[in-house]
């Protein structure tokens, strides 16, 4: 069924997509005074089979490999392309759907068609089969990302589950010092959230913040617990350890501040970017710590990506 639907989508797109949208704008053109002896080099270096001849923005002809060969075969003296070009040029209008272009390719067997703006008659570019394929792929991609935005919300899971309030709770234990296993919790959480159909950008944010918290438990917290609670509106993450605690939280939150031992730094951790990364990914962030007792961290994320949600970058 899915396959049928996709073919249908392409059929729709070939009518929606206009020649003007798919055409290539950066095009090699010749002026009427270009000499025939120069044509070969132009076609060859640009890997094209024909080039339009343009005068004052208007298409006055086209010169193809065929025209060039004919000129060679006849042994005529060198002359401006104006004298040898084909004057009856098949072209397409900007506002025609690409399905017309596809038909023209089949009908004439040419490799390319010049594109003309209907009102002014101005030459605006060239369209090839490649341009059409790229144009269609791009249109499908845009369509697909729109679909992604609208359907990945986690809503459908909640909508189809009958209850007044629903929440899901994931808990993970993290062992201290096992730096080799770093990222296991974040990766597993990431998978779970994508099964639930959460928006990819939200997943990215949650995964990065969780990863940083997980590494903190491993490096400083001597292990701990990560709890993820998801309800109909938000994802709330609580990270708890009974480790040494943080004496000065304000200082610990400063980008670049780190108390990491050398062995950790050598592995590329402890750059003092963990907390800043968490803060830039989460939309709420709270930390409580008592020296000798432990540290608790709360991070919150919206469940749905809003239009203005930026990438998780500081």
């Amino acid at each position, binding site marked *: 069924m899915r396959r049928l639907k996709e073919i249908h989508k392409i059929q729709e797109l070939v009518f929606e997509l206009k020649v003007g949208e798919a055409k290539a704008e950066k095009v090699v053109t010749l002026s009427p005074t270009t000499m025939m002896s120069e044509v070969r080099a132009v076609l060859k270096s640009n890997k094209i089979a024909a080039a339009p001849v343009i005068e004052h923005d208007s298409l006055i002809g086209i010169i193809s490999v065929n025209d060039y060969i004919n000129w060679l075969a006849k042994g005529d003296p060198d002359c401006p392309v104006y004298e040898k070009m084909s004057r009856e040029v098949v072209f397409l209008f900007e506002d025609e759907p690409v399905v017309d272009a596809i038909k023209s390719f089949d009908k004439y067997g040419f490799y390319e068609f010049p594109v003309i703006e209907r009102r002014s008659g101005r030459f605006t570019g060239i369209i090839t089969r490649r341009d059409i394929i790229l144009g269609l792929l791009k249109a499908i991609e845009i369509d697909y990302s729109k679909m992604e935005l609208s359907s990945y919300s986690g809503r459908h899971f909640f909508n189809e589950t009958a209850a007044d309030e629903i929440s899901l709770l994931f808990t993970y234990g993290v062992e201290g010092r096992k730096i080799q296993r770093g*990222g296991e919790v*974040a990766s597993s959480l990431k998978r779970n959230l994508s099964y639930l159909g959460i928006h990819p950008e939200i997943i990215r944010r949650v*995964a*990065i913040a969780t990863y*940083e918290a997980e590494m903190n438990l491993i490096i400083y917290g001597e292990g701990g617990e990560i709890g993820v609670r998801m309800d109909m509106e938000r994802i709330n993450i609580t990270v708890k350890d009974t480790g040494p605690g943080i004496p000065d939280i304000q200082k610990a939150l400063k980008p670049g501040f780190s108390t990491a031992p050398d062995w950790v730094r050598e*592995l590329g*951790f402890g750059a003092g970017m963990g907390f800043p*990364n968490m803060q*830039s990914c989460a939309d709420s962030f709270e930390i409580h710590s008592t020296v000798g007792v432990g540290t608790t961290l709360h991070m919150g994320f919206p469940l749905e990506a809003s239009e203005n949600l930026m990438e998780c970058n*500081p």
Partner: protein
Amino acid sequence: MRLKDIVEALELEVVTGAKWLGNEVNGGYASDLMSDVLANSQKGDLWVTLQIHPNIVAVASMRELAGIILINGRRPEKETEERATQEKIPILVSRLPAFELIGRLYQLGVSGMRDA
């Protein structure tokens, strides 16, 4: 540009992810700090690093990077390889040092800045 083109041009050894060499490379990022890569790399980046422990896979997967190139002929740890295969992250090895490798990537058109 696809990963495959880069592997060929720079004669990289493909350690994991031979199936994923069709990945599109959108840009490049070079760093040996995990948090830095998490914060500043972008989706589809090719990551150049000397780190070989399994966390590089977690970071690459989190950021949806196109792949990882290890420099100076460094080999990934066994566990790194296993995780990379699981997470479908290509790990490539270059014999070149970082400076040289990045220079050649840049020549191929891989840029560290999206709007450049």
